[in-house]
């Protein structure tokens, strides 16, 4: 166990840009090789080790498959602490943007309607795509400090997206 990171467990290079299909295939290959079912009639020790490896493969898959958590993990590997608890400093422009989004979301919750929901959903999606593009470049150039700042912003956006999704049920019932 230990020593290697999630990427090398799957035989993949440490990179943010990753084909989801390739990642899934890699995970399934490892998961298949180490699954406890392969050792169902084996000894207790064999089952235990298979369980550990299998758990690890699934954890790696969970962390890598989601782009945001993959970005956070890459920052960690790059030696940058995201300091999510303490570091709330943010670029003024993003701060303004975030406040606007909050207002739109509050407005939508007060007056649920389909067009406003769609508009905000599209806006969030565009912002998310932009983060993915920016981070692809930053990670490719090993600019982990700058990447960490974007990741922190993305985490705020992610919370807003979750809140927006919660309003979806209300709007679908309209």
């Amino acid at each position, binding site marked *: 166990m230990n020593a290697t990171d999630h990427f090398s467990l799957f035989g993949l290079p440490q990179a943010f840009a990753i084909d989801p299909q390739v990642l899934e295939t890699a995970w*399934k290959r490892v*998961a298949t090789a180490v*699954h406890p079912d392969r050792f169902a009639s084996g000894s207790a020790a064999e089952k*235990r080790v*298979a369980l550990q490896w299998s758990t690890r493969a699934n954890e790696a898959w969970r962390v890598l498959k989601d782009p945001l958590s993959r970005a956070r993990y890459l920052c960690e590997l790059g030696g940058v602490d995201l300091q999510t608890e303490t570091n709330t400093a943010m670029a003024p422009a993003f701060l303004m943007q975030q406040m606007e989004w909050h207002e739109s979301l509050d407005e939508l919750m007060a007056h649920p309607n389909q067009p406003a929901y769609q508009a905000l959903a599209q806006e969030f999606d565009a912002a998310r795509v932009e983060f993915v593009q920016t981070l692809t470049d930053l990670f490719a150039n090993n600019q982990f400090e700058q990447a960490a700042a974007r990741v922190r912003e993305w985490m705020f956006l992610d919370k807003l997206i979750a809140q927006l999704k919660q309003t979806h049920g209300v709007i679908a019932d309209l």
Partner: protein
Amino acid sequence: MALLQISEPGESPAPHQRRLAVGIDLGTTHSLVAAVRSSVPEVLPDEQGRMLVPSAVYFEAADRAVVGVDALAYQGAHPLDTLVSIKRFMGRSHAEAAASDVPYVFIPDGQSLKIQTNHALVSPVEVAARILDKLKFLAEGTLGDSLVGAVITVPAYFDDAQRQATRDAARLAGLNVLRLLNEPTAAAIAYGLDHSSEGVYAVYDLGGGTFDLSLLRLTRGVFEVIATGGDTRLGGDDFDALIVAYFTRTLCLNDLSPASRRAMLSAARVLREGLTDQADFTVKVILGSTTLALSLTRQVFETMASGLIERTLDCARRALKDASLSIKDIKGVVMVGGATRMPIVRQSVGAFFGSEPLTDLNPDEVVALGAALQANLLAGNRNPGEDWLLLDVTPLTLGLETMGGLVEHIIPRNSTIPVARAQEFTTFKDGQTALAVHVVQGERDLVADCRSLARFELRGFPPMVAGSAKIRVTFQVDADGLLSVTARELGSGVEASVTVKPSYGLSDEEVARMLTEGLKQADYDAQMRMLKEQQVDAQQLIESVRAALANDADLLSAADQTRIAQQLQITLETANGDDVEKIRLAIKALADATDDFAAKRMDRSIRAALTGKSLDSL
């Protein structure tokens, strides 16, 4: 069992030796056992050629029980001694059972329950073990040898306590459980969906007492349960209860005795099954001294059934939502369970998913057949090209109680298992030296709305200022979906853990006691067989340890090598004797002595396998 043999993953150490393993569908109304014979899975019939063993147990004396069809014969005269639908009470609390619509006398037993019959006080686990014992006996008789293990199916929606209860029942029946398998997954295997093109399939399983809806994604021979939904208290029995309620209302049948009620329920089932092929049906029922003719048209029945069917479709909607999928993403629907024979069910499901459901295999047998295929695979009888893997998910969210009766979610539902997740907690009061850990299961935010799985205490860490202790709580769910929880104070290293089962399961001591009691009655032949088995096990272990030492001795220190060599010699000498217990202990001692070595070899073997494969894929 050979304890140190390392072979290629998934391959039997002795490929030419066929290892007998069976699949068991432990059902609410009936149970089946199936095995792969000549490469084809088939249900094993009983002495009279019947495939379905009714899940019924009649207790005729404190230690004597009749199982199956013969038990049902007693149902009319002894309704309180003839236990049916026992699966509904596996891993359930007294309060839950008492709220159900059956005539039994339930007695609280800790967080679990027992059933008081006229001759015996039994737990649901013991009753299920009687059924499993019967199936094991039947299988060994038909296959002509003892079994290396069994795959037992459970509803995908079964929670931890229910899974643990099922596992305990199997242990009690002397079965080695290779795997608990979700019923819908077994059905998909039986339909050979692993050979079909890839996609997401829905499995609609309406059995006697449970409803499950699972979404399975199939990719290159990998089965992955991506979402499960269902209702552990909805099944064919409920349709029968509706029919009974209809007649008690229209015919003003108040205060039915337990025997009359059973008679009505049996008649309702006959009536419902009759309506599968006919537009109207009549059945006679004897209640005490009067005989009634109950008539029903399919149309009236379908009107009353629509509410229950709508409930099943609601589960389907929720599962789709959980998986972020819509109906058009579903490639096909597999129908499982006798209740899916009802035309209204097939029509409604077909209309909902917009495709004709798969109904080619007998819906009563399909789960057992799939389990048999999986058992055969797990026992190492793999045919070339036959290689699939089941990736399961946790059915419900697992969490901990925190301040104010709130739940902190640790492992979200639908996480791929095996999975482990840790979270850190701290102390609430100055000088606190203990922490109570309460493990719960469920989606809700309040502890009161979730199912309590286990409680334990972490004691004896040094007193500190409030908020400065660091207590890491780790949840580990294994491939069977069973949970163990460990709490560790990081500063002092004080640790406590629990495998979730104390609320419902049997302790190892209880199982050991029950097994010993069973053995006392065993005859001389059985004892001789046990001696032989132990000697063979000892011999296999000795050989595999020798082989392991020859290949991987570099993993051991000189001291460890000496220690293992000594234990090897002791085991060799003991195995030549005829003391079963001594041989058993020697095997255990040798296995214990080589456990760490085995783990290291396994680790090395996996590393080698992974490296080799990643090179292949480059």
